[in-house]
């Protein structure tokens, strides 16, 4: 087929593979997160409650892993949908960089938000 199409679509294994890896991470950590918030603590959500949970270093690790994995998984998922409709075109690289910036930004913003609970 057209060589330019070939060139346009090189790579793709890492996003695909990482989507699977993060899926597994999210599956596990989300299960813990949901059990903790929606089954054990339902109707009992508050600032202090969260602080109590995150005081355990194990829970803090779970929530940080979840944050990182789910942000990647979500943005990479949106990117996959995006690519399906060829909306990227020649601006592919720009979109990829934008997604990375958003992702890293969101992660740090989330970590920043969680920090007082963990250290507090």
């Amino acid at each position, binding site marked *: *087929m057209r060589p330019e*199409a*070939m060139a*346009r*679509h*090189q*790579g*793709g*294994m890492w*996003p*695909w*593979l990482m989507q699977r890896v993060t899926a597994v991470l999210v599956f596990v950590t989300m299960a813990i997160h949901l059990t903790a918030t929606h089954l054990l603590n339902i109707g009992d959500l508050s600032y202090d409650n969260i602080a109590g949970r995150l005081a355990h270093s194990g829970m803090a690790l779970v929530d940080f892993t979840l944050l990182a994995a789910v942000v990647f998984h979500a943005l990479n998922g949106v990117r996959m949908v995006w*690519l*399906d*409709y*060829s909306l990227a075109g020649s601006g592919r690289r720009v979109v990829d960089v934008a997604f990375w910036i958003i992702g890293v930004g969101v992660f740090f913003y989330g970590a920043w938000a969680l920090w007082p609970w963990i250290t507090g």
Partner: protein
Amino acid sequence: MPEARFHIKRFDPKSGVGAHYDEFTVPYEGSLTVLEGLFYVQEHFDGSLCFRYCCRAAVCGSCAMYIDGRYRLACQSNVNHLKGDVIVVEPLPHMPLVKDLVCDMSEFFAKYETIKPWLIRTSQNPEKELPQTPKERLKLDMPVDCILCGACYSSCPSVWTEGDYLGPAALLKAYRFEVDSRDEARRERLPYFDNERGVYRCHTIANCSEACPKELNPTEGIQWLKRAAVRRRLFGRLK
């Protein structure tokens, strides 16, 4: 004498009318395949009707169509087994049309060609046959039966949205050679399917397996290719 009512999608690029449906009633005795019905219409009612045909025995892949809401080979579809009063006959969905039931297959074959669909040997061939055990041969059983009819290609949502996607048939062909014990292009063919217009554009929807009139399973082949690509890139394993 029983009759079959055909509701046939018509389209002539030159007429300027656009696509529409014509209805024809075909009498028959005993049994009638959709392909025979189309010939009856072409011979008796409308000489301008066109469709592809060749072997009429489900092996050439010419007459894949969308009949009564399913992907079928017209030659293999007996009207006695189709439900409903009217048999709706349409060309393969999502394909550009040439005329009536004939769609443009040029992209389909162009993509087939790009994955290097031929056995590649780098070492010297022996004087006699290349040995292949029945167990090795068994791996080819499913993919070599592909008749390139295009039903899977036309049913794949990834093809609908991404014009560059190779599609199930071409990837099944790549799989056919990747699992052939005689092929020696494990590294060479990899870049042609290990990319975003290749296997990673497949979302395991499995429409292709549902559509295949030969009951093959392209999904299985594509999944194998994905695993092979990861194995090769991460661990350098060629098998």
